[in-house]
Structures are given as C-alpha cells and as structure tokens.
C-alpha cells in the first residue's frame, strides 16, 4: 500500500518597472531572448506593454524560486524563456518547457498556479507549485 505526500513550493518576485523599462530600452534584443512569441504578442497588443513584461519577468523568477533554482546570476539565462505565462480566458497560467519542465518533473511537480499584479512602479508575481510523491 502506498500513500501520496503533497507538498507546496512557493516563489515570489518583485520587479521595479522603471528599471526594467530602462533595461529593455538599452537592450532591444532582450525582449526576444526573455519572452516567448505568445508572451510578446500578448504584451505588444496592450497600450503600455512594459508593466506586463515586467510582471511576466517576475513570474519567471518566481517560478525559478519555487523550483528551488534561485535567481540567475548569468545574464540572459535560457531557462527564463522556457518558463511561459499563457492566458486562459482572463487568468494567467504557467507553462514550462525545456530544463524547467525537466526539473519540475524531477521534483514531482503535479500542478502550478501563478498570479500577477502591477501597480505604478512595481510588478509582482507569485507562483505556487504542488508536488506529489509516492512513499
């Protein structure tokens, strides 16, 4: 007989929007290196895309924290683009590709949820993952 243990993993990240805006302005190629086509299509349709990009960047960092991988000290870590925020109706969802997906599988992540918010100069994301392991 086996039981299943459920654990929660949580990560949050806060981004100062003017700093992020400055970075995108000085490194125009950064948007394509950090964000998927779908993320860019979504943000670029909005009248003021930058806070939405900032919130998505926060979500990527929050997901790395939830996965126990911490922040990226390497510049444009390709793992960031492999963590994607997709919209389903009005709610954002997290889709993992590549290494983050492999890593989530290794940890037994069964489900995840992401929440985004921004107000004025700050964008914030919170990511919760549920792991299930048989024991």
């Amino acid at each position, binding site marked *: 007989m086996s039981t299943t243990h459920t654990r929660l993993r949580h990560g949050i990240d806060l981004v100062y929007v003017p700093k992020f805006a400055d970075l995108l302005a000085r*490194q125009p190629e950064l948007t394509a290196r950090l964000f998927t086509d779908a993320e860019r299509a979504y943000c670029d349709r909005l009248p003021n895309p930058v806070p939405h990009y900032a919130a998505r960047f926060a979500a990527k960092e929050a997901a790395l*924290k939830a996965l126990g991988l911490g*922040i*990226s*000290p390497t*510049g444009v870590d*390709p793992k960031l683009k492999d963590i994607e925020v997709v919209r389903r109706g009005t709610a954002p969802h997290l889709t993992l590709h590549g290494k983050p997906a492999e890593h989530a599988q290794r940890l037994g992540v069964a489900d995840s949820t992401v929440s985004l918010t921004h107000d004025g100069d700050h964008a914030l994301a919170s990511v919760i993952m549920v792991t299930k392991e048989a024991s």
Partner: protein
Amino acid sequence: MANSLVTRERIDQEVRAALATTLRIDANGIGMEQSIINDLGATSIDFLDINFRLEQVFGIRLASQLLLDHVEEELGEGTAIDRDNKITAGAAALLREQFPEAESIKAGIYADEVPAVVTPGSIATAVEKIIAHLPDACPACSAASWKSDDSTKVACGGCGKDAEYPDGDELTKRWIHDMQREKQLFANA
C-alpha cells in the same frame, strides 16, 4: 595566446564600474570577494544589466547558462542536481574549481545557494578567461598584431576588425569535458 593588451587590473576596474552604475553604489567601496547577491544586493535584473555592460565594454559574450545547467546538458540529467534540489559531489567539486574561494560550496547544499558565490572577482575571472582566447592571427586578414586603444576592446593591427572570442557558454562546455577527462568528477557520466 594570452591577451596582454587587457590587464586583470583593467578588468577589475571595469567590473567595479559596471556594478557601481547598475547598483548605484560607490565603485571604490566594492570588494572583489563580496557576494554580489548577498553583500551588494543585486537582483537578477541587475545581472542582466551588469553582464550586458561588460559584454559591450570588452566585445565578448559571457556565459548565459549556469555551470550546473551546462553540466546536466553535457553529462546527463541529474548529474549536477538531485531530486531534493541538492548539488551532487561532482557538481560541488567542479564549482570549487570555478570558484576556489567559495568555501560554502559542498555536496548536498541546495542549488539555490549557488548563485550567491558570484563575486566581482569571479566575474572578472570569467571575462579574463574569454579574452585569453585572442587568436594568434586575425581570421580576416591573417595579420598577427593586435592593438587596443582603450585597454578593453582589441582590434586587428592589420585590417582594424574587432577581435572575436569564443563565447562563455562554449568555453564552459569545453572546460567541463576537459575536467571530466582529467579528474573524472562525475562517476556515471
């Protein structure tokens, strides 16, 4: 060939300058052995900025992937980080080669503790390792003389074209395989 046109002192100076600009702190107050995350308070956005500034200054491309990710890509999934998010003995040994000062690195520490070992000194070493790969002769015109007006960017003394270096990710991959051949840090890889 070693790159004698760009000194370590100059690299240290540029790393300090990049950190000071990005983090809005005094360059003279930055110690080369301080943790950029724990002591200087950098976030991942700051690293996007710092690395970009250094890449512009020296005409290089720093590694964009973490050493742990490179190890897993080159030697197999699970070779660097285990199911509990702890680093393996092989990964710890390799990290100690890359960050000799980082005494906190041991097998069994959590993977998210590793980024804190990055210091101004370790970034300067990463820059130094890349520019040490200046080719003997210019690939464009075969001239074997290099010059630098500002002691950061190097150009060909013949045709004036900027020197091109292998990027940091490529060098890291080569280094992992060299270390594995030499020291067999990863038993089952």
